[in-house]
């Protein structure tokens, strides 16, 4: 199976998982979207050396994983796919920032390493939260949710179609790539020029398909507004989820809980 094929399979798996019925899946998409947004803002707005303050945020993905029945391995595989991007983003930090800001036993720790670790930590937190949002809500739910929250129609519709046609486009890419590799020998025919032509074809095919999809939509009375049928109602649980988690995130953002606990423990011991 090619990387693209297995990637598609994983995306499809996530989609099917989002159709399950667990307490986490039942929470209104709007509550989950807003709570995740508060989570993301709190996590990314912490300072670059605030590694300790990031730790408590782990509780959110952990609770989502355990309450939704998501196999941790499935989440791990998806995080691993995105990890190289984060690894590369901060790779020069340890070289550029060599100011020693602390020590673990005899080892001096430089600011660069701390900020690199904090980038990785932020990546793990934000990506796992976003993945869990999709896994427990589904793309349709997320789109219906953000639409009700006042996000312009054009954006939520684009997002919905983008997701729907990832599969069709990827299948088209796979067919083109297969056709090319079957007629390429000894690395001939694998050059950049061929890629250029393949991309051109892909663009033209996508435009033709877009026209046909639009025709099909028009035939069924499309007037520029996609009406989703997901009936949304925020009940007590949803409000509790939203306010409860938001309060926790804001607390973690402004109070360095590990430092506080550490201070308390030190005080008790001494």
């Amino acid at each position: 199976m090619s990387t693209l094929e297995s990637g598609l399979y994983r995306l499809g798996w996530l989609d099917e998982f989002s159709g399950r019925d667990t307490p986490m899946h039942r929470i209104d998409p709007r509550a989950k979207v807003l709570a995740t947004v508060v989570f993301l803002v709190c996590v990314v707005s912490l300072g670059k050396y605030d590694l300790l303050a990031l730790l408590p945020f782990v509780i959110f993905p952990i609770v989502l994983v355990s309450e939704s029945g998501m196999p941790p391995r499935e989440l791990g595989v998806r995080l691993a796919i995105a990890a190289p991007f984060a690894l590369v983003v901060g790779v020069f930090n340890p070289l550029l920032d060599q100011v020693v800001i602390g020590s673990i036993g005899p080892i001096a720790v430089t600011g660069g390493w701390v900020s690199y670790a904090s980038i990785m930590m932020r990546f793990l937190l934000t990506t796992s939260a976003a993945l869990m949002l999709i896994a427990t809500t589904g793309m349709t739910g997320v789109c219906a949710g953000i639409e009700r929250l006042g996000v312009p129609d054009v954006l939520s519709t684009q997002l919905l179609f983008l997701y729907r046609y990832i599969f069709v486009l990827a299948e088209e890419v796979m067919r083109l790539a297969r056709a090319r590799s079957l007629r390429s020998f000894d690395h001939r025919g694998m050059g950049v020029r061929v890629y250029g032509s393949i991309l051109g074809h892909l663009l033209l095919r996508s435009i033709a398909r877009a026209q046909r999809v639009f025709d099909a939509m028009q035939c069924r009375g499309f007037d520029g507004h996609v009406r989703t049928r997901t009936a949304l109602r925020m009940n007590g649980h949803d409000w509790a989820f939203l306010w409860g988690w938001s309060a926790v995130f804001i607390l973690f953002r402004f109070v360095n809980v590990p430092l506080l606990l550490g201070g308390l423990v030190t005080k008790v011991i001494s």
Partner: protein
Amino acid sequence: MSHHSISVKDLGFAYPDGTRALAGVSFEIGHGESIAIVGANGAGKSTLLMHLNGLHSASEGTVRIGDVPVTAKTLSGIRKTVGMVFQDPDDQLFMPTVGQDVGFGPMNMGLPEDEIEARVDDALTRVGALGLKGRPPYRLSGGEKRAVAIATVLAMCPDILVMDEPTSNLDPRARRNLIELLGTFEHTKIIATHDLDMALDLCERTIVIANGTVAADGPTRDIFADEALLDACQLEQPLVMQGCPVCGHGGEAPPLG
């Protein structure tokens, strides 16, 4: 006059690049008729279908559905009357789940929620796909996609069904099931196809299109018996009418009606 009838008069159409796809096409289709539109690749079948619900507007001539001419102003009514099933179901199934996709048309018609639900269930039941309601369309097999694509149109309760190559890319069993399903519909049906055996099974009348014009229009079995005509239009007799390749025994007489 019934909404189920179609009248095409002197229809001509050229694509923006100048390619002339249709010229002087005229025919009348009455209430409840099943019509096959056959012709070689590039003969103009799909372009003709596009005119029947206003996806293309006629550059010459007129198209009328019942009493109503197809114009920009009448489009929304025309599209409720004429349901179109596309050749590639992936173009037609764009919503995240089968149920939502089938509900897309009724929802755009402004129907109340319980009516939409009833229509979705009814349309899916008719094509034998109620079990697929919650599934995403891209996870379905070719035959399932085709059935759902037909359900998306049935849910709008059209009077006329227009289908472009409904049996293409189907395995023999799925094809047979589809033919039986289409046979149960009482709509006026217009089916563009290369599957002449299906045309013989389903359509009492056939219009042959060649080079953008009507080359022949008449009872299906008469047209398919005319080998010279079929040959001139790059077509072949349906398999059921051809001689047996093993024993050389003559093909069956085409079924009546």
